């Protein structure tokens, strides 16, 4: 699944080819299309029929990316949903399992779609996403905002983890406290998290703006996005998925 390296960097005489070579893997635009198409397919009225295929795709992407935890976790999560959603109510019919079943029949679609989305987030750097969106002529405010959001996910995740650690050490993170004082517990988590995230975002945006992010000049890309063989294989798949979701007869409709 590798896009061909740009010719001027592929020559063996170049030093540091690993670092400067075009990123292996799909073009960001293909990844975005995949996420959109898979979401449409599994969320359509007869979406369940696409779930096995989308799951397979998500696992395949995870394997290509060598994200083993996701490659194993996704099928396991889907298996659990399938057992709870389809098998359990048959074995042990009662109102609780029925409600659980309805929930899981829907959640399994999310598992599949999130699996494909995780590949986009894990393998696309903010600058490459912005370059891809520019290639699509997406307006600047949108592309810059999305790139900044993508950059900001890990910051918020890191801050949240640190605040949770601090709460654990102060004895504020237990399930007991959450049940007794739900609002207070959430407040104690969110206030420091937002404060810390804001502070981190201030440095990030100051530096990015000074380095021209969102400037009026027309930006370029070190490696302009380019479709490769893998992209050409997957785009028809995308088209087929969307067509299937929209055109296949839905008995309930």
């Amino acid at each position, binding site marked *: 699944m590798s896009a061909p390296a740009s010719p001027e960097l592929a020559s063996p005489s170049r030093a540091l080819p690993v670092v*400067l070579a075009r990123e292996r893997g799909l073009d960001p635009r293909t990844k975005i299309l995949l996420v959109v198409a898979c979401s449409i397919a599994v969320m359509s009225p007869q979406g369940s029929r696409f779930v096995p295929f989308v799951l397979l795709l998500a696992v395949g992407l995870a394997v290509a990316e060598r994200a083993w935890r996701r490659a194993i976790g996704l099928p396991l999560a889907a298996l659990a949903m399938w057992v709870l959603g389809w098998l359990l109510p048959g074995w042990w019919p009662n109102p609780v399992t029925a409600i659980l079943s309805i929930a899981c029949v829907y959640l399994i679609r999310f598992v599949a779609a999130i699996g494909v989305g995780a590949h986009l987030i894990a393998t696309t*750097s903010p600058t490459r996403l912005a*370059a891809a969106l520019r290639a699509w002529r997406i307006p600047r405010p949108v592309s810059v905002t999305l790139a900044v959001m993508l950059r900001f996910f890990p910051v918020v995740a890191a801050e949240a983890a640190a605040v949770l*650690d601090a709460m654990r*050490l102060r004895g504020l993170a237990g399930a007991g406290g959450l049940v007794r004082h739900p609002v207070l517990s959430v407040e104690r988590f969110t206030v420091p998290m937002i404060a810390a995230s804001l502070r981190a975002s201030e440095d990030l945006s100051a530096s990015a703006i*000074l*380095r021209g992010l969102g400037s009026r000049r027309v930006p*370029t890309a070190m490696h302009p996005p380019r479709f490769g063989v893998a992209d050409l294989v997957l785009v028809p798949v995308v088209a087929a998925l969307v067509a299937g979701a929209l055109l296949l007869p839905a008995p309930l409709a």
Partner: protein
Amino acid sequence: MIRVEKVTWTYPHAAAPSLRDLSLRVRPGELVVLCGASGSGKSTALRLLNGLVPHFHDDGVLVGAVTVDGIVTAGAELDELGLVTGSVLQHPRRQFFADTVAEELAFAMENFGVPPERIRARVEEEVGRLAAHLPIGQSLQRLSGGQQQQVAIAAATAHGPRILLLDEPSSNLSADAVDRLVATLRALKERGVTIVVAEHRLRYLGGLADRVLVLRDGAVAVEWDAAAFRAVRDEELAREGLRGAVRPVELPALPAAGASVARPVPAAEVPGGALELEGIRCRLGGRVVLDLERVAFPVGSVTAIRGVNGAGKTTLARVVTGLQRGTGRVRLDGRTLGLRARQRASAIVMQDVQRQLFTESVAAEIDLAGGDRGSDVLAELDLDALAERHPLALSGGQQQRLVVAAVRLAGRRVVVFDEPSSGVDRRHLRSISDQIRHVAADGAVVLLVSHDEDLLALAADRELRLVPAEPVRPDRSRG
């Protein structure tokens, strides 16, 4: 080149101006150091030069004129100023926009519309230069503080600005990383780049600085030229609240056994202590990040945890405090403690203390910590007048003291300080070291994770120096 004429600047909602009638000039190719105690206005003066003041603070009040490379900053767009100035903020880690060295170096050039071939050539040149000092394929967040600093400087100068602005570049660096910083600055200066540095550690700039300006209350109080600065004594620096030379500090080693220990001793020769770790092994991301066969930390004294990034300092702190699972045993006063018990027995004073202030007033924060000596500890830490204030409205130093107060009241037996002195001046350094000493004197086992040799010299009794338990593999850019 840079001209500041009688500038007075007041931050939004501030009672008093941060800069008062400040005037300064920097000639092309000069290296000028702005120094002064915390709150003297040196960082603000730097932000004046790249336009963050006034553009990044709506409703601030600016009087006077600033001209940078012929551009009047107040009337210019920030990116116009970014084209002629490169800025490195205090925490390089927080300002990276990309994940890899190459992408970070290309970032400014991409935004300014440099043709792709020129970006690639330029990035290749810079990457070649940096490859001598750091693993180029590594994710930026995993580099050491010194390596991140190198990348941040390269990323700020890749698009060829003639002016470089650095905010406390040495604040998180060890002595040898400071030497590399000096070499980098020297090379830039030889290329004719004008450099302005805001700092409170000064001596390392001795051979480079053309002028040193000491700021006090937002104006230049003292000016030294290169020769005068070299003649200034350490006592005079101390009077201005400035830090002198960065001296490597040698501490007696704590005997310890295991692959993570820099100078291990046989396990049988490790003496007992209040907090004992045995057979600790932690794997993260398929790599052994901490391997301690046996070590014991004594009560009532301060043990420095030192070592390069990736040596397992943070992991050790997390194992001791019960935030990280691992094989092996942790014993406190002879009793083996599980994860929960360790969490209840310990505390961390984090580098970003804002993350651990949970309530709406200083008094409530103290109540939450429990104990009955609340008012005594508040008075001792000079916080009693602030009891009704919101913790997030306090200054960084006050927040840190509040967290320390809560830790002391809760009577935790194991206390970890994580880089408590980043970016503080000489006076505050003394106060932080006093805090650490007090916690130890209260009868706690204190671990101090820090690169700051000035702080270690004041606050630590002995050191445990860690090395990576397994060589770091050059891994994929994203994990």
